[in-house]
């Protein structure tokens, strides 16, 4: 049978696609369905002693106060990071665009925090918020006569202490997206706007921000997903104590703690997955309408 030119194209497309699809299937789809399967079982460590439990694990998660506490922590983290990272990201992008000299240097410097690994970042956070009088924050408050505070050991302070550094320095990737988005706005828009007004803030409000709406939608979606799957700071610094357990740490503790209650961890994972899916779709539906184009 002789293949037509079009069929050849289709065949070669699928041939190329098959590699990543098989890869994706092996390392995502198979574990996904295995985890789904486990969520209906009592799997602990050994597959030998596994029995079906129906929706027991889901019920166990949904009636667990710790799970809801972890979800609350996760939502607080997500909202704070969404606001902080996007606010600083867009602000830095707009300021960078205004620079006539040294733009790339500042861009590189502001991108730098992204290169710091999570472990190193956590050690920095530990040092900055050390309970010792020599901790940076305690030294600062000491200047005003305040006594050293054990930031990670007090409920209420602990989550705040974990959030400060990522809130202030976690904007780099977002900033790059905003920056490229602002740079791609045709200069004629700004030239026309400048004929109308000399106020830069008005131009930003009426020209720049509306035209980078697509970047906002993308960045907010990325912030949402990043925030809802946060694990590192809690696991590396407080181990979830004092109201800092995130939903992913909750799952991790059940899955890889000594007891390895994989069934419950898998059920929790699917509940969190459903939550992320709903939040992402909801966010896209709300903010994705009426995307701006330059045409």
């Amino acid at each position, binding site marked *: 049978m002789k293949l037509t030119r079009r069929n050849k194209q289709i065949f070669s497309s699928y041939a190329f696609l098959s590699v990543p699809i098989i890869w994706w299937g092996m390392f995502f789809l198979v574990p996904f*369905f295995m985890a*789904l*399967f486990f969520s*209906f*079982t*009592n799997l*602990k*460590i*050994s*597959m*030998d*002693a*596994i*029995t*079906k*439990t*129906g929706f*027991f694990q889901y019920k*166990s998660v949904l009636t667990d106060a*710790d799970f809801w506490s972890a979800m609350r922590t996760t939502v607080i983290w997500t909202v704070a990071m969404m606001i902080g990272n996007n606010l600083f990201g867009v602000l830095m992008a707009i300021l960078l665009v205004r620079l006539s000299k040294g733009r790339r240097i500042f861009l590189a410097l502001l991108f730098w925090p992204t290169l710091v690994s999570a472990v190193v970042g956590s050690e920095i956070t*530990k040092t900055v918020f*050390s*309970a*010792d009088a020599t901790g940076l924050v305690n030294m600062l408050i000491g200047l005003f006569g305040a006594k*050293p505070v*054990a930031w*990670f*050991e*007090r*409920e209420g302070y602990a989550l705040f202490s974990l959030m400060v550094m990522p809130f202030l320095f976690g904007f780099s990737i977002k900033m790059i997206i905003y920056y490229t988005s602002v740079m791609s706005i045709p200069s004629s828009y700004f030239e026309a706007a400048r004929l109308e007004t000399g106020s830069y803030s008005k131009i930003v409000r009426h020209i720049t921000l509306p035209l980078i709406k697509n970047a906002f939608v993308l960045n907010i979606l990325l912030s949402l997903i990043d925030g809802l799957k946060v694990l590192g700071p809690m696991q590396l*610094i*407080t*181990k*979830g*104590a*004092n109201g800092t357990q995130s939903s992913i740490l909750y799952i991790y*503790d059940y899955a*890889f*703690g*000594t*007891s*390895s*209650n994989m069934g*419950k961890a898998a059920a929790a994972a*699917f509940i969190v997955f459903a939550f992320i*899916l709903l939040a992402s*779709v909801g966010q*896209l539906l709300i903010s994705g309408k009426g995307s701006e184009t330059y045409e």
Partner: protein
Amino acid sequence: MGRLIRILIAAVLSAALFLPAGCDGCGGESRPDDVGDIYTENPSELSGSIKVALPSTGDKREIFNNAIDEYKKTRPNVTVTPEWKTSDEFYLSYKTDISSGSNVFPDAALIDHVYVQGLAGLNLIANVTSVTEHYKELYVDNLIEANALDGRYYAFPFSANTVQLYVNDDIMGGVPVPATYAEFLTAGTAISAANPDKSVFSLSTGVDYKGFGAMLYLSWTARNGGTILSSDMKTALLNGEKSKRTLGQWKQIIDNEWANPSLSNEGNFYLGKVAMLEMGCWSVPTVENAGLNVSIHPLFSLDAGSENNNSVLGLYSMCVTNQSDINKVKIAADFSAFISAYTQIQVDYAKASKCLPVTKEGVADEFFAADKWKPFCDALPGAIRRPGSPEWQFIETEIGNMYMKVVMEQSSIDDAAAYHQNRVQKRLDEYYGGL
């Protein structure tokens, strides 16, 4: 987008409906409940190959290579392939290996004793009682018991450690080293008055110390005459009288301003700023290198009228994977028993890891008979074993969070004990709940 979501929902629902239906005792061929008598009378007749997961940091790799060479001298037909791991704490990777069903697990591995009962309960490691019976007398009393479940042994002790009282004699001045809690209070008052710029004691407080703090908490509660978990490991006892007494004592130390509530004073002890520190034997070289005038003493007792001064036991043990190939089980058990009972290997490994040998001959070695090591060795027979609960990791974290709440004055002793008791009990009930 809408189509993708519909496909995903459909896939999830179909899997939810059908997958569980096919799962009743699934998971492949089950392992034998008990491997029976695996002791080999004449080890030179053993033949085959095994993989052993071993720590590779520091000088340990060389020690294990020498041990394997030594072993092969009397077992010429056996091949032992070490599977080097980067950390001593590779329980998680071992657990994953042996439970994956992929047949890539090591035949033996060195793990923290606190995980032995959990793995034994799940039938993942072999009952090695038939072999330990022949080696039992060689080990320091008490150590083999740390690997027991229902009267059977599931691992060979390999490397131990205990905690003792480090005393900075310069700060102490003429104050006698306390042997009881009452004496500790008297000493603390005197030290504090004479050294206002120094601390009396160190508690394992702060974010990085809760794991070790939980071990010390167990020791304190034992010295108060109690424990934190029932003997069947199904009931938490964190709100018991003895546990709460420990919380009270720790709070008293903080209230007296003898220790820092939010940060361990361990580092300051090595800088000569703290009078007393309860610490493990691994810190002996640190103290020696610091050039301090430090002596090491037994822990002080806490229960009035009792001489109970138990340390807590740290122990790494060699366990044997429970698998269908009985020949490998036999070789793995033989190898594990060999390296755990061979004095030179024991002494060399203990020196390299700054821990203690587990054999009677090992602790009698000249090195461990020295003043700074002897108290740790002497404490081995009476050392308190951490409960081998499958939920130990969770319990340990909860203990850390409980005492931190008390010393940070965020909660009363009763409230903290009740709160964390409930959390641990809930977790234990979940584990032993039958599902």
